[in-house]
C-alpha cells in the first residue's frame, strides 16, 4: 500500500457569521453581505485546493469541548440541524455529512497507543458542532469528502497551556502516523480564530461592517506577530509562543488546534500562504494554508 500523506494543513476559522454572509441553501437566515475579506480568503483557499486531490478531511474543532480525553466522530453519516449556541440568529444550518470512520479509528487508536486518553463517539443522535460544520462548509461546500471530527480536550482550562501543548503535540504526531499508515491523502483543518476577545454586544444588523473591527490593539499586534511567523515558515518559534499568545490575546489556540496542526505537519519551514485576515465580532481570524505536496499557492 502507498504511504498516506497530509496534502495540506489549513487554519480554517469558524465564526458562523461567514456562512451566514454566504447565504448557502443549508442555512436558514440570510444576509445582505459581510466579512468579505474572510470569505474571499476562503475562496482563494478553495481555488488553491483544486490543484490537489485528497480522500478525507480531518477537522479539529474547539467547539466540541471534552474534558476527559480527545473524542472522534465514529458514525458513518450525520444529518441534522446545527443551531449556533451563541449566534442562533445567524446560524441554523441543515447538514448532511459523511465520516471516514476507518481513519477516525486509526487516529484514535494511534493516539491511545501513544498514551493519550481517547474515545470514539458512536451515538447516532449526536449533533455535530458548528466549528466543524463552518470550517467544513467554507473549505468544501459540496461536502463530497468524508471527514474526521476531532474534539478539543480542554487541557488549557483544566491544567495550563503548557500541558495542552504537550498533549496536542502528541496528538499531532499520532495523526500524521495514522494517516501515513492509512495510505490516504488527507487535508487537515484546524478550526479556530487567532485572538478571541469578542464584543459583548451585537449590532442590530449583524453584517453592518462599519461596526466591525478588532476588539483591541494588543490583540491585533499579536495576530500580526503570529501571522508573520507563519508567512516566514517559523513554525517551531510559533509553537513555543502559543502559551503566551493564549494568555495575552485570549487566543482560541487554547483549544490545541494549532498545536495539533503544526505537529501533524512536522513543523514545516516552508512559508505558509495567508489567504485572508479579518475580524468577526472583535476576534481575529486568518485563513492560512501550508501545502505539503508539490502544488498550491505556497
Amino acid at each position, binding site marked *: 500500500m502507498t504511504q498516506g500523506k497530509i496534502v495540506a494543513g489549513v487554519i480554517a476559522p469558524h465564526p458562523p457569521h461567514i456562512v451566514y454572509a454566504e447565504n448557502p441553501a443549508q442555512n436558514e437566515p440570510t444576509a445582505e453581505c459581510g466579512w468579505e475579506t474572510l470569505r474571499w480568503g476562503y475562496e482563494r483557499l478553495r481555488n488553491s485546493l483544486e490543484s490537489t486531490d485528497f480522500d478525507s478531511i480531518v477537522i479539529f474543532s474547539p467547539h466540541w469541548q471534552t474534558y476527559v480525553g480527545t*473524542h472522534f466522530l465514529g458514525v458513518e453519516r450525520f444529518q441534522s440541524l446545527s443551531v449556533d449556541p451563541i*449566534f442562533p440568529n445567524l446560524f441554523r444550518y441543515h447538514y448532511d455529512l459523511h465520516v471516514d470512520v476507518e481513519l477516525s479509528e486509526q487516529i484514535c487508536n494511534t493516539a491511545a497507543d501513544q498514551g493519550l*486518553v481517547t474515545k470514539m463517539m458512536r451515538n447516532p443522535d449526536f449533533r455535530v458542532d458548528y466549528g466543524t460544520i463552518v470550517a467544513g462548509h467554507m473549505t468544501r461546500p459540496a461536502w463530497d469528502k468524508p471527514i474526521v471530527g476531532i474534539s478539543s480536550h480542554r487541557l488549557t482550562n483544566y491544567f495550563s497551556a503548557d500541558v495542552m501543548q504537550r498533549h496536542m503535540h502528541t496528538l499531532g504526531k499520532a495523526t500524521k502516523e495514522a494517516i501515513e499508515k492509512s495510505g490516504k491523502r488527507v487535508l487537515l483543518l484546524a478550526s479556530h480564530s487567532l485572538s478571541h476577545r469578542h464584543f459583548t454586544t451585537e449590532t442590530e444588523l449583524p453584517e453592518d461592517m462599519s461596526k466591525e473591527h478588532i476588539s483591541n490593539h494588543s490583540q491585533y499586534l499579536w495576530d500580526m506577530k503570529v501571522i508573520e511567523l507563519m508567512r516566514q515558515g517559523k513554525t517551531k518559534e510559533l509553537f513555543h509562543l502559543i502559551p503566551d499568545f493564549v494568555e495575552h490575546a485570549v487566543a482560541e489556540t487554547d483549544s490545541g488546534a494549532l498545536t495539533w496542526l503544526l505537529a501533524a505537519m512536522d513543523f514545516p519551514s516552508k512559508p505558509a500562504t495567508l489567504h485572508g485576515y479579518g475580524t468577526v465580532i472583535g476576534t481575529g481570524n486568518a485563513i492560512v494554508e501550508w501545502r505539503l505536496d508539490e502544488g498550491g499557492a505556497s
Partner: protein
Amino acid sequence: MSTIQGYILPGLPQPLLTPEANPGYGRLREAFCTVRDEIAASKADVLMIYSTMWPSVIGHQILSRPNPQWTHVDELFHDLGSIPYSFQIDSELAHLYHQKSKERGLMTRTIDYHGFPIDTGSVVALKLINPDNRIPAVVLSSNVYADRAETVVFAKAAKEALEEQGKKAIAITISTLSNRLHQEWIDPKDDRIHSQKDEEWNQKLLEFLRAGRLEDVAQLSRQIHKEARVHKVNNFKSMWWLASLMGEHNRYAGTVHAYEPVSGTGCAVIGLQPANSAARDLEFDESSPEVFAGDRNVLAPSVSHGMSSQSPEPGEGS
C-alpha cells in the same frame, strides 16, 4: 415574595441515564425525585433556571421558545445515551425578563429557535424534577464575560419581572460544587471526588448551605472559583444570581438531599427554604448594584476621574 424556594442541582447526565451504575448516582436520582415532589407540592408558577452549563457571549440569553423539542446527546458522556425532551417554557415571562434586563443596562436576548441546543444540565434537571411539565420554566445562560455586578443586576431584573406578572418562582441553579473531572475513564463503581482539596471545599460549601447561608456563599464565590473550580469562565457566578434573586440574605433553612461524586466532580442536590431567622452574616462586604453601567476601561484614561493607568495618584489627570 416572588421566589418561594431555591435549589442547587448538578447537571451531569449520570443520575438521569445511569442511576444504577453507582449507588451514589442512585442517591442523587432519589434526591432529584424528592425535589420533584417538593416542587409538585409547591404553589410555584414557574421554574427559573440559571445554568452554568449554558455559556453565552453576547450578554445573557433567555430561552423563550414555548415548546422546545429535541433529542439531546451530551458532548462528553455521549455513550450514556440520548435524551429526548419536550419542555414547556413561560414565554411571556421570558420576554418581560428580557425587557427588564435591558432597562437595567444589560445585554440580553430571547431564544426562540427550533433546534437550539439546550444544555445538558437544564435538560437533566427538567426531565427529573418536572417530568410532566406541570410547571413552565424559564432557562437562562451564564454569560462568560459577566462578573458580579452584571450577574446581580440580571437576578434583580428577574425579580422585577416576576413581581410585575405576579408570579411565584422556584429559583434553581445548575452547577456542580467542585467541577474537576477525572482525566481518565473510570469504572463508575470506583467514582470518588477528584482530590482531597476539592472534597474539603465541597464540605465547606455544604456546611454553609446547610446553615442557610446563601448570601455568604455568594460573597465567597470568587474564592470558591479560585480553589475548587476549573476556570472555564471568569468566575463562579451562579451563587450571585441565586442569592440576589432570593433576597441577598442568609434567612434560609438548607437541606442537603444528596452529595456524591460523579466522574470526580462534587454533585449535590440542595434545597433552600425561607426561614424566620438568619445564620450569622459574616461574609458581606460586596455592594448590591441596581443597574449595570457597563465595563470600565481600566487601560484608557477615565473621563469621569481624569485618570489613566500612568497617573501616579488617583484623581491626577493625564
